[in-house]
């Protein structure tokens, strides 16, 4: 069964914050926290890991363990995006490629970040698609032939 406990933690934390401004600040704090506690190695900031189509630079690294679970690490040079990248990579790490494909737009909507701006909602969807693409790229969904580059 897909373990979405980390995702649930984020969703619940965000649900508890009923003020949009506070939710915005929560993401900024998250971005700072990831930066401070889990710095992204400079050596990983390569074109290979760059997620294209973002207004700020976003790098995502995918590490697949022996049981086929994906462990993502992400970073952005913008703090707010770094918070969102950190949350998404954290929330959806530990899933297999097949499990990643079951994540839908409804999960992203549950985080209720759309109110922060439409642009960020779109960015979150692009990020999800990117994680799913990485999930497929590592053979978990071999044979689908579906490689969406539009994220």
């Amino acid at each position, binding site marked *: 069964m897909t373990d979405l406990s980390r995702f649930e933690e984020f969703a619940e934390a965000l649900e508890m914050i009923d003020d*949009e*401004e506070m939710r*915005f*600040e929560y993401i*900024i704090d998250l971005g*700072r926290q990831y930066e401070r506690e889990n710095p992204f190695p400079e050596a990983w900031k390569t074109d290979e890991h760059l997620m294209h189509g973002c*207004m*700020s*630079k976003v790098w995502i690294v995918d590490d697949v363990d022996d049981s086929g679970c994906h462990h993502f690490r992400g970073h952005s*040079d*913008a*703090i*707010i*995006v770094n918070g969102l990248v950190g949350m998404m990579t954290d929330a959806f790490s530990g899933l297999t490629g097949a499990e990643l494909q079951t994540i839908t737009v409804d999960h992203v909507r549950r985080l209720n970040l759309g109110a*922060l*701006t439409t642009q*960020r909602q779109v960015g979150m969807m692009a990020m999800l698609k990117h994680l799913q693409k990485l999930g497929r790229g590592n053979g978990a969904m071999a044979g689908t032939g579906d490689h969406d580059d539009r994220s």
Partner: protein
Amino acid sequence: MTMLDVAADVIQTPAQTSAPLDVAKVRAEFPILKETVYGRPLVYLDSAASAQKPRTVIEAVSRAYETSYSNVHRGAHRLSQLATDAFEDARETVARFVNAESADEIVFTRNATEALNLVAASYGRTFLTRGDEIVLTEMEHHANIVPWQLLRDEIGVVLRVVPIDDDGVLRLEALADLIGPRTRLVAITHCSNVLGTVTPLKEIVALAHGHGVPVVVDGSQGIVHAGVDVRDLDVDFYAFTGHKLYGPSGIGVLYGKRAWLERMPPYQGGGEMIDHVSFAETTFKAPPHRFEAGTPPIVQAIGLAAAVRYVSALGMEAIRAHEQALLAQATEALAGMGDVRIFGRAPGKAAIISFLVGSLHPYDVAAVLDRAGIAVRVGQHCAEPLMGRLGVDGTVRASFALYNDGTDVEALVEGIHKAKRMLGG
């Protein structure tokens, strides 16, 4: 009221003086400025990307659809005649606005980008050959770079780039040096969309013409901030877009000297632009219709004419003076913050300020400003080579228009303070 009634306005020439702008009255004419964003009053500082529309433009567009819409140039019925008259009257209005010799020198396009592509495709393929040179500048928008690169890749022309100095001033002496025996065209912006730098077009045109080289101008920003007289400037082509000039999107203008347009082949083929068609041969209409294949942006042109009448009635000099006062206020306030780095300090620049705040990412700053109801542009502003010259990945850009006032500047400054507090800059 029909479109014909709307048509009979006198367009003020740039030289005419006018009363100072009554900004409160102006703001009341832009319905969108009453909107709130995240529960806060909208502070719109992104007019260099696209300007908001006064009620007169919105009503002209609605009225055209409600009272006299039809296709143009072909119908044998009353509505078609009305629509054709209004469309061609819009051409006359635009011609008077830029002081063209004739409305036949005004080609309607989708936007400035299409106008520049038209020159690159039609003029470029006709008059340029392998090894010929086109002179550009470091501060061009992609719309005035990529069409020439496509031409380069197609026929082998060479692009020469004039540098700017650290204040964003065009280095005229370098321009003079770059114009050589193989130079066939100077393609230059009238006003940088990033730096606000206004280029000395008269000097540049005189220099180029002294070598027999024509000049095409990207006037997307230039025409918004001050009056343009194409005959006084003596430019060969001047391209601009309607939506930055308070008109609708989907309409652009290419002014071209009649002598050039008459010698240029069509850009696209189709209906509207032909004289006779047979499978053996097709002959084309005279300019400007030769360059307007297919159904044109009819209502958009009518809307643009309404916008032109609107800014003309206010007076381009009054608009320029108003924007310059805002620019001075904003520049002083931002510079006074100590850690705000402003890109572009050219004397006489237009009311566009690109900046960075300390070490904060421009995207973060823009996001906090957005939450405060302040709309700015962030990123490379379709000017990636210029970003490289400035040594940055992107900037925040605040651009001021005729409807902005001092409280907008104060809101921007407060928003930047808030960004610094929230982001730790």
